[in-house]
């Protein structure tokens, strides 16, 4: 039995289902979707939402190697802030490394929002990259609490430049201490979702600082404006779940009843992964349910980021800066309050107050502008070593942003018709294209 995945599935199921009654006609759900939904937004596209929730079907996965050697590296970074008691388990940054036994290029993979270094998406990329002859280092997102505590110089995650600087410094520290037998011929970076944007900015920083001599960067489903993307996710949550804890409670009760009924109708003697996979397929069916699952996944990541940010920035929204919680303290009320907080609250109550104070002449508007890929637009336009892959129905991009990416990267971006947000990561075409990009063999999208 695979307990962890069972729990994750149970979590998704128990927390992430539309509270509406079961069998509403499809039309009513579409009417509930945001008015902004356009052809490139994906918010109203069933296929895109479904792909985002369920990911690439195993049958469509790119070929994967039989065995990939793996080690876990825990590293203490000197610039990290003192570790608060409540985060005692995050003292060191944890990354995963797979070494070839001959000289090879190193691919550094960065996870998306809230992801650790060993997400299933990172593991998929590790498999294909190792199979293609790379050493592979997979890293957490700078928004993962383990990174915020052990590797962030501020503790307030979500700033594209600051986070990428911290990532770059962490990469240097790790690469310098890899075992001597590992021979690296060149370094490439890639990342998915927010990690894609981080990867590109890391390469841009390296172009100035020249510490790692990063060759190529590939962004998979990157955001263009962090602020626009989070606003879309907030709206997705408000529309598919609601805004209060009562809404979450209703969602939970509905789902609990449904799972209990499914379980009683089955001949199972315990809840296992098989049952939950089947239940997921039965319970998650409509656009609104997919939306709720996606929105809730992001919200649970935000809860961690918000908590850490509030603690480090001493903004006092949910954590009393003078009496931070200790190991034995109950945190249920704190989590309940945080669950109602959208990304916009994180921005206005933690992120902006913190950075406005530290960056003279900055304004909320300038912070928003600084968190766009525009900050490296020149490099993206002129340096032929930046690449991107995305989908026309990716829900974190609007149409203007997709156009901006296409105009800026020219033939170095490929836009697939379907896949939603990361729903085709690992499929044969995406991987074949990604490997061509990383190796510099990419000659533009096939028409």
């Amino acid at each position: 039995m695979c307990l962890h995945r069972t729990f994750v599935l149970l979590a998704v199921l128990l927390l992430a289902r539309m509270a509406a009654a079961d069998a509403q006609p499809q039309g009513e759900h579409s009417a509930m979707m945001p008015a902004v939904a356009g052809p490139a937004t994906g918010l109203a596209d069933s296929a895109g939402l479904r792909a985002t929730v369920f990911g690439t079907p195993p049958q469509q996965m790119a070929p994967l190697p039989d065995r990939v050697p793996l080690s876990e590296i825990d590293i203490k970074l000197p610039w990290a802030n003192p570790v608060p008691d409540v985060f005692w388990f995050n003292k060191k940054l944890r990354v995963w490394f797979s070494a070839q036994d001959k000289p090879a290029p190193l691919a550094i993979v960065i996870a998306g929002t809230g992801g650790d270094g060993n997400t299933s998406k990172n593991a998929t990329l590790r498999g294909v990259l190792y199979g293609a002859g790379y050493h592979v280092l997979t890293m957490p997102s700078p928004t993962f609490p383990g990174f915020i505590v052990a590797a962030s110089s501020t503790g307030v995650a979500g700033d594209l430049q600051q986070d990428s600087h911290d990532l770059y410094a962490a990469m240097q520290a790790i690469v310098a201490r890899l075992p001597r037998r590992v021979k690296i011929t060149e370094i490439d970076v890639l990342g998915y979702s927010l990690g894609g944007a981080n990867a590109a900015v890391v390469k841009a920083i390296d172009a100035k600082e020249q510490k790692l001599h990063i060759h190529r960067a590939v962004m998979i489903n990157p955001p263009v404006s962090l602020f626009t993307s989070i606003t879309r996710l907030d709206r997705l949550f408000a529309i598919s779940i609601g805004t209060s804890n009562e809404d979450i409670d209703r969602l939970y009760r509905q789902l609990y009843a449904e799972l209990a009924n499914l379980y009683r109708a089955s001949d199972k003697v315990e809840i296992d992964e098989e049952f939950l996979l089947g239940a997921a397929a039965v319970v998650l069916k409509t656009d609104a349910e997919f939306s709720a699952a996606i929105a809730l996944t992001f919200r649970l990541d935000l809860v961690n980021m918000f908590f850490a940010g509030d603690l480090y920035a001493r903004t006092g929204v949910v954590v009393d800066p003078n009496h931070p919680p200790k190991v034995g303290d109950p945190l249920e009320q704190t989590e309940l309050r945080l669950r109602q907080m959208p990304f916009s609250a994180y921005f206005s109550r933690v992120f902006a107050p913190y950075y406005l104070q530290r960056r003279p002449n900055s304004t909320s508007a300038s912070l928003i502008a600084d968190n766009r890929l525009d900050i490296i637009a020149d490099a993206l336009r002129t340096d032929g070593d930046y690449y991107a892959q995305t989908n026309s129905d990716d829900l974190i991009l609007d149409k203007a942003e997709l156009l901006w990416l296409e105009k800026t990267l020219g033939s170095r971006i490929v836009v697939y018709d379907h896949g939603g947000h990361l729903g085709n990561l690992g499929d044969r075409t995406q991987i074949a294209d990604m490997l061509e990009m990383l190796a510099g063999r990419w000659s533009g999208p096939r028409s």
Partner: protein
Amino acid sequence: MIIARPHGLLGFVGALLLAGCASNGLEIRSLPPATPAADNAAAAANAEALAAAMADETTNAAAKATATDAGNAPADRPPLFTPADAPSMRTYDPFERLNRFTYRFNARFDDAIFLPLANGYRRLPLSVQTATHNFFTNLDEVKSVINYVLQFRLRYAVRTLGRFVVNSTIGIGGLIDVAKDIKMPRAQTGFSDTLATYGVHPGPYLVIPLLGPSTLRDGIGFAGDYGINWAVNVGDLYRGSYWKAAAIDIPWAVDARANVDFRYYATGSPFEYQQIRFLYVRKRLIEDAGLRRYSRPTPPPAGAEAGQ
């Protein structure tokens, strides 16, 4: 939950703790190799089985719907849960402070001792791992048989007894799971389920040292199962010196740990304790509802926390 029998492990733990674990700025741990191709093939097989089952379900559902329309709904249908019957999102945890410290102890123990042992075990040839796992699983059938009898679920009791007999003989003392291949899949139960059948609620949430997330009833159930094993004493494995106990219990625990894909604080989150608590108790409550399949669900009393 994490291991089945801590008995005999304690001395061993002390020795390992004394051996100490180096902790400077950098620690590189070699893990068993990843097997992406095999993992994906397994996922594909799962997906196909699921699709087939779903297709079946759709056909059955259609048949049932027709039956209902005709006014003769099948009588064997369990009464339905409604959202009002769901337990509170809050969990009954009067020992929370102690539990949280135990959770931390378990996390540290796992990281320093349990997981390294399990990772070492996972480097053994797959055939050795499978045989070991089958052996211990087979021993576990004994308490399942007795508990099924206590629960008056005789069909399962007979099947499980059948599995035990087949696997212990043809399966060479349980090393090979022959029964699975002749359509006798494993279905385990325990004394906690027996208590649940008689209407005992899970009670307070409890994090047991080394065992992990549990409830008072599950803790008692665990002790009860141990008692059953002691009383039956299959193959004289359950009585005797501490050395003998350790020789059985340590491989048992390591095998159990190696088969659980859970990593303490992989979430990096300070809320992990309460999230696991939430999921563990809901999982058990739904399983309880399955044990009393045909009883009508009753809404929990106002203000009651889950498990109370």
